[in-house]
């Protein structure tokens, strides 16, 4: 299959081609770089919104409500929903769509579920390519839902212009975990499930925590109460997203973030591309043999890594790098 043909079809609005190219990238099949260059040139118009937070707080329900709001404004919407891949079997059940099924036959909406596969920061490594593809397809608003996995969903910052951290009333642990990892990434906090007891005090805890930081560089994250399933407080959430976007559209404000996004994406592409290139330089049998030697403690894992890399990069000084 010629991937540049796929890219051209996507730019003309072919949804099936978009679905296919996303799989090609996810499976890390060889030779899609040129197609992604074309996709890149045709993208850059979509607003990208990230939704993150612990498991079960209501991310998918909120994504569904926000997407309906965008649809009412006449905008087309892309949704990328990431669920965890089992590290043991490599399999996954991708269930975020259950909350969005009303949108699945809307021609103005494209929803793609992804397993986190190798990614550890709450996203799949291929999530940014997927966002680009949906952008080139013509989606005006793209919403990315991360894996609900606790404290390490920082990857979303490398992808979204606006990050919403969702939480819900309950144990103080919730706020504790936000302190430990999500504080730096939130542009907006939503305390969802405001219909449950304790939402006011969760919001107060969050505000107290935010007040400890002195310099917010022009944007102090608001803490909003909402009920995604009860359709309460959603106007305010959408309004804050709009305001953040206006603020973020000032190049001064966003250059630093854009630069760190760019840096991360370049390194991700290098890492996965080099790993792919190097791994393909040894056969499965050769790799199996090295694995056996290391498992039997007859060879150091560093030595094995140098042997593999050495057959792909003859002449490189691998003792410095590995």
């Amino acid at each position: 299959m010629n991937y540049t043909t796929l890219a051209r079809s996507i730019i003309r609005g072919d949804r099936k081609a978009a679905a296919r190219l996303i799989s090609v990238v996810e499976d890390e099949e060889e030779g899609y770089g040129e197609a992604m260059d074309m996709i890149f040139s045709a993208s850059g118009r979509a607003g990208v919104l990230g939704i993150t937070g612990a498991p079960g707080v209501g991310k998918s329900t909120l994504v569904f409500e926000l997407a309906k709001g965008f649809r009412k404004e006449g905008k087309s919407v892309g949704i990328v929903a990431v669920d965890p891949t089992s590290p043991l079997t490599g399999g996954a059940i991708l269930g975020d769509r259950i909350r969005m099924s009303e949108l699945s036959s809307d021609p103005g909406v494209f929803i793609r579920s992804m397993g986190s596969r190798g990614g550890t920061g709450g996203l799949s490594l291929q999530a940014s390519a997927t966002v680009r593809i949906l952008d080139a397809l013509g989606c005006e608003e793209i919403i990315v839902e991360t894996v609900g996995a606790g404290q390490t969903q920082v990857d979303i910052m490398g992808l979204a212009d606006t990050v919403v951290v969702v939480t819900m009333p309950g144990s103080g642990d919730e706020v504790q975990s936000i302190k430990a990892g999500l504080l730096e990434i939130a542009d907006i906090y939503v305390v969802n499930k405001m219909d449950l007891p304790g939402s006011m005090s969760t919001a107060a805890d969050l505000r107290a925590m935010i007040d400890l930081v002195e310099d917010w560089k022009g944007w102090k994250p608001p803490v909003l109460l909402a009920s995604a399933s009860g359709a309460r407080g959603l106007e305010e959430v959408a309004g804050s997203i709009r305001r953040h976007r206006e603020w973020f559209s000032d190049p001064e404000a966003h250059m630093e973030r854009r630069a760190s996004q760019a840096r991360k994406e370049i390194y991700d592409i290098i890492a996965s591309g080099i790993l792919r290139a190097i791994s393909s330089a040894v056969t499965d049998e050769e790799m199996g043999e090295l694995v056996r030697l290391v498992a039997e403690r007859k060879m150091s894992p560093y030595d094995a890594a140098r042997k593999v890399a050495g057959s792909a990069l003859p002449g490189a000084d691998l003792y410095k790098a590995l």
Partner: protein
Amino acid sequence: MARKIRVLIAKPGLDGHDRGAKVVARALRDAGMEVIYTGLHQSPEQIVQTALQEDVDAIGLSSLSGSHDVLFPRVMELVRKNRMKVLVTAGGIIPEEDVPALRKCGIAAVFGPGTSIEEIVKFHKDRLGRRS
């Protein structure tokens, strides 16, 4: 990287029996596949649009309420209309005498109550290649 098998497990129509669909979804996941589960009450249009966006290799239809004879052929019609290359299987309460018609409209296999999970997993692996 190994090509991963992606399967959509869908519940068409008003049928609320979802145990079988969930059992099959978990089994395929445990076999290393990515399984998209739609939840209940899906129209054939929603199922086929979902399959298209998710670029799945297979669609599994589960029905225990007796509406398979209308809904399954409609799914197959839309699969053809969208020129999708996808394996479609089915399961649930489907009388023996209905199976030939379903097979004829393109459903690859029908698995009734009591089918072993191993058989369902093996069927998908055999048909979709060792991609996972």
